[in-house]
């Protein structure tokens, strides 16, 4: 299987604290990989290092596009990473609260558009075409995520589950081949989690993307993922299929006494 993401010996230190300590990770084409671990294990830090929010202290992050171009991401800005084809969502929802649902998705299309300032002012045929296409595409994405009835609603006024979905929709609008989801099911009820499960599977099948997700809901994780990575204290402590990981004594030990939302 061809890898889309290869992380080797990734290290991140804050002062003296090793938040990540030599993490290795690969994700293949069209694969769903879950990243689990106790609170504070370094999962979100890993996400931030991958997406350029933090600059890694050591190691390397490389992505390979479906066309076969490999790019080293270390030190690239978040916007560059996104335009290269890796999109993400956030643990604490970060929607553009005072923009409408449609606009949120349109923002996602930003890096696939080209109109500049002159285009915006002159509004020539090309810009108009592009703008129309963006509205069109965005609406279609909303339909796919069953958010079309909220089109002109402010993002902040959406129900919680819909906000989570909108975040994914917005990320998908950037046309990624690798999607990073940070606790997508946090705070959802059973039904919403079930819908999310279906949604992620559908995304993988229809859009042919790879997904890396952080999640505490073990039921969701085991049903979704092809492989699971377990991290603790910034280190990878286990890796394997859901069945393997679940009975791994190291993992059980790491979680022992920890309260998890499973």
């Amino acid at each position, binding site marked *: 299987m061809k890898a889309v993401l290869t992380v080797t010996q990734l290290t991140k230190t804050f002062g003296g604290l090793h938040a990540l300590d030599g993490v290795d990770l690969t994700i293949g084409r069209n694969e769903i990989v879950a990243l689990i671990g106790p609170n504070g294990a370094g999962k979100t830090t890993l996400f931030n290092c991958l*997406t*350029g*929010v933090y600059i890694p202290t050591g190691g390397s992050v490389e992505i390979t596009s479906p066309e076969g171009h490999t790019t080293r991401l270390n030190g690239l*800005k*978040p*916007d560059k990473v*996104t*335009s290269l084809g890796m*999109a*993400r969502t*956030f643990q604490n929802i*970060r*929607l*553009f*609260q*005072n*923009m*409408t649902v*449609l*606009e949120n998705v*349109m*923002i*996602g299309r*930003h*890096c*696939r*558009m080209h*109109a*500049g*300032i002159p*285009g*915006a*002012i002159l*509004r020539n045929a090309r*810009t108009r075409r*592009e*703008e*129309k296409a*963006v*509205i*069109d595409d965005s*609406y279609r994405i909303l339909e796919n995520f069953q958010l*079309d009835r909220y*089109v*002109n*609603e*402010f993002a902040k*006024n959406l129900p919680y589950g819909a906000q989570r979905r909108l975040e994914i929709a*917005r*990320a998908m609008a*950037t046309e990624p081949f690798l999607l990073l989801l940070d606790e997508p099911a946090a705070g959802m009820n059973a039904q919403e989690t079930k819908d999310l499960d279906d949604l992620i599977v559908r995304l993988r099948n229809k859009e042919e993307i790879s997904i890396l997700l952080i999640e505490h809901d073990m039921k969701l994780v085991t049903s979704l993922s092809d492989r699971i990575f377990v991290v603790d204290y910034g280190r990878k402590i286990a890796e394997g299929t859901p069945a393997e990981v679940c009975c791994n004594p190291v993992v059980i030990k790491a979680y022992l006494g920890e309260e998890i939302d499973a």
Partner: protein
Amino acid sequence: MSEISEHKILFGWEEIKKSLLTCIWFMFLTFPIMVIQVNTIHRTVEWRWERLFFVGAGAFLLSFLWRYMIRRKEAGIKREETAQNTHQDLLQRLLSNPRFSRPALAVAVLFFLTFPLVFSLYQIDIMTTALIYVVVALGLNIVVGLAGLLDLGYVAFFAVGAYTYALLNVHFQLGFWICLPIGGALGFLFGVLLGFPVLRLRGDYLAIVTLGFGEIIRLVLENWNEFSFGPSGIANIPRPGFMGMDLALHQNHTYIYYLMVGLTVFTIFVVRRLQDSRIGRAWTALREDEIACQAMGINKTRTKLSAFAIGATWAGMGGVVFAAKTTFINPASFTIWESVIILCCVVLGGMGSIIGVVAGALVLKLLPEYFRAFSEYRMLVFGTVLVLMMVFRPSGLISSVRRVYRFEGRNKLEGQP
């Protein structure tokens, strides 16, 4: 339900007690400064007891109003929390209703076109000044209202524009029409120059640094005599000529007025288009959430810089017209208070809302002229209005409305502002 009962007892005993307390408190508070005037030069003391009475009576009555307004506001917030994007107040509903807005627009166009034919020279003069502020405020609206970058030194770009015209005219006898785009371009350039170092800063740090830049520009203009003629300023800046003709005073004012109307229309046109474009959405997203914005593939640096620079362009052009209209400029016209006033045009009018900013600038520049008789109290009232406005109507006179898109079936779509 409790709100209603509270409203009922607005004049109950409890309320009167509260107001009495407020009244006594304010009488205590204002006692030394309002009542006692110690003249340390002539060593005399003047007691002005009658003022205490006015303060007391005023505080007593106003405290009722204050509490009533606060309650109404809190009830309003509760309502708003459950409200939808489609919820708008009366003014916005009127504005978005074509049956009202089209005739209103027609009347406005007619009003501004016939203005100089109907009104006196003085009216034309103050309206022109107000329009200059409209343009400049619209520029600042891009920076503050759309991109959410608090700029307290915006007047620096205004000064750049004004001095561009004045200096180019003094040294190279360049005319108004050549200087107008040059002023805009230099504004843009300064926007980029000043924007670069402050890109990493956020919120309050940005505010103080931009304030610093504003002051730096003014101080340089004040001190560098060889370059800018120092604090005594530059006089005899020519008013724009019309096809090489020298116009009489009234004609000239009328001409600048129409020129300003044109520039205003042009500004509104451009700002509207920018707002509804890819770049405009990026500005708004940047205001809402920087991190998420970058995660969506938006280049923070370029987006911020473009907001700074485009905002500054309008200030530069406004400055050129300002210099041409006043015919005299000196650094004292570009103090931090000028920045504050322009910022207030934006905030009072309604951040991010074009029509709001236009209304804000017109109100803020015209009302003081019409209330010249009370000019002593002008700034006092201005300060009060700022506070009250923020407390009771923080979204400004006319708050911004997000664009609404209508989809009638798949692929059949129509954007409507």
